[in-house]
């Protein structure tokens, strides 16, 4: 008997018991659907985090002071205020893999405009900061090199700050007060969205770092960190090495001694954040796979019942010339057809489910072709694995006993 005929016979047998076939396949439908939907949540979270970090700039490097060590006792990272403007200038001059630098002096402050006030992050930056951080100016402009050199009291508002102080209106040219010092608004930043939820990139005010040093922080000789962009994303590592070399000379660190600064790049930070979502994906996928396994056991259960119920039919088929192989194939194909149909419907459920999740919840979901193929193959092998035992049992029946079976 040809395979096509066997498949036809299996379909007929299944369609004679539509409700039971559907309920049997339901285990696989839910299993495959759950696997695809769960993996899409994990993958979505990963892509989400990566794209948020990418929006900050993949060729971005941070130079921060290292931990202070006093008589063998280490403080935390950044406890050492040892970065100077001269360090930043040396990096820009001597590292050819570095494109832009921006010394940073950051603080928080209360800002006031007329009867409104707001507490926000103040970024004291250099004039190249928008180029390093992929910031786009919506209205007005960023401060220039000369405004930085002369420590002008000018500022650029983040979209969130502009919303809170000016109700999102045009604020360029207005005067706001930061720590009671008047600053002229010269630009508004375009909104960037929240980065991973722990801080809002739009809730900032940028001022020249020199102004921040003199007017807001009160230390004119130190800077808190240096933001650097490499020439290209590929040369990020090279830039890191060059910066380390230059700073060791600047800080007169003896060979073999520890660095008193840290250089980190954005893609490292993004990767470690994405890494944590991998565990989430595995966990969710693993839980969903269990339901697929349970679905497979359901198929085996129904197939065993079906074999017992159809012993007479098997006897008839054998008496008119069905070979062992024909019976084995018929029941095996029934199981495979059940699980494949379950697989197809499950893909629909999974894709639809993940679309619903991303529509009705803040989670991003991403259905990958890989997860569909994986779930589908898993469903098919569940069919083969759990269908084989009942099919073999059917094929080993003795035709005389089977015909006599009541």
């Amino acid at each position: 008997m040809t395979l096509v005929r066997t498949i036809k016979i299996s379909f007929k047998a299944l369609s004679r018991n539509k409700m039971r076939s559907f309920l049997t396949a339901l285990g696989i439908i839910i299993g495959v659907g759950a696997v695809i939907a769960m993996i899409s949540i994990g993958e979505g979270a990963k892509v989400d985090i990566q794209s948020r970090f990418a929006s900050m700039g993949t060729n971005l490097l941070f130079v921060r002071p290292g931990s202070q060590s006093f008589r063998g006792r280490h403080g935390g990272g950044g406890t050492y205020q040892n970065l100077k403007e001269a360090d930043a200038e040396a990096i820009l001059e001597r590292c050819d893999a570095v494109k832009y630098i921006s010394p940073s002096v950051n603080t928080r402050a209360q800002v006031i405009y007329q009867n409104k006030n707001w507490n926000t992050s103040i970024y004291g930056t250099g004039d190249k900061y928008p180029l390093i951080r992929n910031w786009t100016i919506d209205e007005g402009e960023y401060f220039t090199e000369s405004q930085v050199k002369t420590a002008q009291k000018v500022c650029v508002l983040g979209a969130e700050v502009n919303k809170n102080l000016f109700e999102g209106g045009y604020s360029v040219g207005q005067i706001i007060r930061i720590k009671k010092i008047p600053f002229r608004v010269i630009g508004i930043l375009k909104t960037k969205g929240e980065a991973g939820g722990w801080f809002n990139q739009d809730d900032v005010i940028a001022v020249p770092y020199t102004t921040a040093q003199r007017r807001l922080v009160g230390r004119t000789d130190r800077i808190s960190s240096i933001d650097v962009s490499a020439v290209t994303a590929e040369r990020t590592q090279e830039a890191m090495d060059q910066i380390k070399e230059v700073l060791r000379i600047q800080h007169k660190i003896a060979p073999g001694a520890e660095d008193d600064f840290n250089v980190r790049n954005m893609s490292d930070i993004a990767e470690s954040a994405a890494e944590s979502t991998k565990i989430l994906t595995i966990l969710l996928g693993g839980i969903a796979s269990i339901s697929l396994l349970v679905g497979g056991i359901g198929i085996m259960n129904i197939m065993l019942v079906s074999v017992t119920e159809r012993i007479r039919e098997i006897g008839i088929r054998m008496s008119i010339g069905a070979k062992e192989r024909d019976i084995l194939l018929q029941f095996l194909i029934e199981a495979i057809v059940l699980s494949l149909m379950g697989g197809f419907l499950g893909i629909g459920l999974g894709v639809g489910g993940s679309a619903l999740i991303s529509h009705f919840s803040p989670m991003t979901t991403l259905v990958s072709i890989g997860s569909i193929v994986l779930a589908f193959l898993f469903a098919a092998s569940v069919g083969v694995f759990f269908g084989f035992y009942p099919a073999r049992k059917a094929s080993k029946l003795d035709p005389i006993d089977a015909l006599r079976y009541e």
Partner: protein
Amino acid sequence: MDNNNTLIQLEDLTKIYQVGETEVKALNGVSYNIHQGDILAIMGPSGSGKSTLMNIIGCLDKPTSGRYLLDGKEVSTYNKNQLAEIRNKKIGFVFQNFNLLARTTTLENTELPLLYSDISSKKTKEYAMKALELVGLQGREMHKTNQISGGEKQRVAIARALVNNPSLILADEPTGNLDTKTGDEIMDVFVDLNKKQGITVILVTHDQEVARIAQKKIFLRDGLIERLNGDRQ
């Protein structure tokens, strides 16, 4: 009579079943020849071994010893798959309880043996329609088996037995579940097929009425042929 048209040769067949510790001898050395175009009735009380003999002739079972030649081939040495093929090509079964597939049309039931052979799907339908016509069921092809009467069911079973043009039809109490009138009609179908198509029919029965249409009869008792009737051997 010469042996040219001998269809079946049974030589000293025995069949011993192992039931727990004890051996049960169902056949005790049966020798008999069946010719092409015969209607043979195998008779005997229950436990006489007639079912066992039918199962062996029908290639559903193998003898413990002795030889069984069908069309000159020693099928008693065949394996399970070879026997399945012989059943498919040379033998048609008609059972007391019809043994049709439930919730399936008469046409599909009739086609069933052809599905296990290498005949094309187009021919399959053609042959099945022809077989249904031979048993007088034309126009009932699309009826499901639960929508037709007992007599019609048995006709479908005969059509199914006929469809692959077998050498013999084995009927096990074919009228056992039918009333007398319907039973007679079914017997007429057998006689008709035998006369017009020259098909060999073997009836297994304990009903004298059924056996009446047979030209030859063998009576079994305790696994042995007790007497022959109307045989020229």
